[in-house]
């Protein structure tokens, strides 16, 4: 075996000197970071209820899609991942393509929120937010985009209130929980969530994060930071890194009763795909979803594996349903270059062609107006 020192002592010392220089430069960079802004796209608060807030984004395109789009994110992380920074913002790209966007921010549950149930979130807050958007737009139906756990919520909502949803888009949403592809699905079976909820009431975000980081300990807790050492002198790279760090460790606690039902009824009993889930006493029958459906999954998603997302398209009765595969992981789907360049325009166009009112042509804001196309049972 070649001895690295025998030939490369000078190289090693040079490498160390270089790292030393980078680290000092990195300190300077980090000391100058006083605030790393996230979610900077202009928006207005239009409705709030308890900790839930509904925001309306200001338009960025001249012509807007006539049907508003409501984005609902997961409870387990903060929604600004959808608008992390100007050049890594799915929200901004959708606005540029003419979408009229509303987004729900669930907030941070406090100790008093331990009794909130899935029913409170879905038939309560989400339904009220939908009604608010309907009222503001004067339309009976809106477009709904659910992300991750928010995607599961959107699917449940669309099954309960199909009359209020014109088009349904879900991104990396777990629907069929009986899969061995994702560790969360495996571990949840042996997790006594009742004990956790009874102990904490509101399950601490740190505890949830522990589970997420544990999935890939060497890459998430070691190599990521070693990689940063090489780039500590690059202000922009460090700022991007720190923004992502801020998001990763910004984990709200979980309202006890809601997470209890989510783990027991979905992860453990897999009731949603079996059409046996009950929310507020009402059975959630996925066959009631008959509106156009766009289901997007990420090929390398280690949190929500494709096998948990894909079965949705077979469970609904929609005639117009599309399944879209994204080359990347659970986070890349919001912030990667491909997401910005390809995914956002695809979603915008898919929605625009299905959101035309009274035969009126709709522009996506960047493309020329064109007549509506009626798609029948499209699968791609």
């Amino acid at each position, binding site marked *: 075996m070649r*001895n690295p020192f025998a030939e490369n002592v000078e190289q090693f010392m040079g490498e160390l000197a270089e790292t030393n220089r980078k680290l000092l430069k990195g300190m300077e960079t*980090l000391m100058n970071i006083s605030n790393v802004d996230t979610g900077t796209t202009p928006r207005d608060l239009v409705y709030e209820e308890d900790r839930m807030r509904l925001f309306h984004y200001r338009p960025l395109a001249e012509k807007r899609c006539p049907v508003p789009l409501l984005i609902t994110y997961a409870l387990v992380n903060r929604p600004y991942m959808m608008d992390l920074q100007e050049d890594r913002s799915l929200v901004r790209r959708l606005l540029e393509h003419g979408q009229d966007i509303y987004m729900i921010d669930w907030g941070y549950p406090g100790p008093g929120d331990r009794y909130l149930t899935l029913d409170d979130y879905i038939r309560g807050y989400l339904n009220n937010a939908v009604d608010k958007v309907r009222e503001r737009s004067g339309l009976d139906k809106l477009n709904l985009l659910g992300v991750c756990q928010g995607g599961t919520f959107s699917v449940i909502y669309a099954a309960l209130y199909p009359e209020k949803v014109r088009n349904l888009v879900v991104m990396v949403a777990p629907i069929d929980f009986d899969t061995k592809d994702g560790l969360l699905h495996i571990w949840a079976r042996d997790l006594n969530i009742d004990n956790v909820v009874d102990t904490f009431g509101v399950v601490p975000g740190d505890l949830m994060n522990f589970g997420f980081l544990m999935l890939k*300990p060497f890459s998430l807790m*070691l190599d990521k930071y070693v990689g*940063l050492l090489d780039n500590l002198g690059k202000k922009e790279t460090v700022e991007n890194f720190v923004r992502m760090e801020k998001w990763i460790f910004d984990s709200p606690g979980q309202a006890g009763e809601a997470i209890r039902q989510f783990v027991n009824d979905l992860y453990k009993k897999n009731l949603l795909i079996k059409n046996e889930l009950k929310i507020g006493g009402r059975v959630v029958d996925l066959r009631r979803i008959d509106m156009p459906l766009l289901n997007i999954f990420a090929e390398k998603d280690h949190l929500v594996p494709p096998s948990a997302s894909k079965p949705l398209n077979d469970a609904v009765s929609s005639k117009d349903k599309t399944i879209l595969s994204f080359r990347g992981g659970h986070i890349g789907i919001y912030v990667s270059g491909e997401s910005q360049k390809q995914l956002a325009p695809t979603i915008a166009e898919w929605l625009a062609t299905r959101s035309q009112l009274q035969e009126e042509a709709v522009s996506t804001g960047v493309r020329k107006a064109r007549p509506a196309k009626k798609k029948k049972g499209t699968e791609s």
Partner: protein
Amino acid sequence: MATEQGRETDFLGALSEAQRSWMRLWTDALSGFPTTTERREAEKESPGPWWRATERIYGEWAKMYQEMFGEYWKGAPLGIGGQTFTRTLGAAQIHGKLYEFWASAARILSGTPTEGKTAQETYQEFYNSWLASYNEILKGSFTASFFEPIRSPLGGTAELMAMYAEGLSKFSAPWMQAMQGLPQKTVEALQRGPQGYGDALRWWLPAYEQTWGRVLRMPALGPTRETIGMLQQGIEALVDYYSVMTDFWSALYKVSTEAMQQVMTELGNMSSKGQAPKSYREFYKLWWTTNEEAVQGLYQTPEFSRLLGRVVDALMLVRQRYDGIVEENLKSLPIPTKSEMNDLYKSLYLLKKEVRENTKRVSELKKRLRSTGTAAKKEQP
């Protein structure tokens, strides 16, 4: 501002001192360096002191930064920059420790095998001698900021329990002394690292259950029986938690040390083909990817899933016992307890829900009334 300036001055002073220390370290390391020709000659003989210096230099360097900037960030306002830097330096330290391993390995593997032993045996001998230190690397990898979240929910539980345990342990001293074989097991545990510790604990637990454990489970008597009973249960829960955590760590260490064996075998194979890593970074990549893969393999097993479930359950029980003890001690104070607050939260939740539903109903009724009124007006001639 004055404070900030003060902090800045302190920081610059610390930085200056640290740089001087660094230069001394550097000079010491470099002073033993032979020239390239001398080094090549020296390769034939036993390695010089400069080897040992270089083996440690990366680790020392990371440690210096950790201490220096760690102190600085302590005084700095909490912020994402500081947290990121701390985590990065934590990673740098593990990186440095692994570098020491790599440097030693490279030196041994590039030299001649120990007399009377094959290269593979020399390899194995070196690896075994490194196992204890390697556990340190693994501990760092898994705990850097990884287990902090699981510790934080415990809050002061461990400390509080430890305090009670310390008091009670005085009573157990004779029992501990009477335990034949404990010293030997302890030595084994120290020599064999976590695996040995796990074995020792498993050996010790039944003895504990039969003796001290029974004392803890004895019904307490007297006016403080309730409090004493709670403490006993708390300590028992803590012992159980430590026991499960030992199994958990053992599983992770076992897989990681096996992964390291795999890395060493792979290195041997690569070396024999003339494809050995050309730089430390290449070795580091081989190391962490092999480990990640091995850990993933462990994670997929139902046994690990069950073990994780047990860890969470044991942790929750400790927390519940702790909360119980805290509530018991707060009873005499004029402040609400967690249980009382929970009752209040529930009432508030139900009340809010009722108000919300009634508000909706009233609003719908108003709408209906308006539309009925409008329709009635239209019908009037």
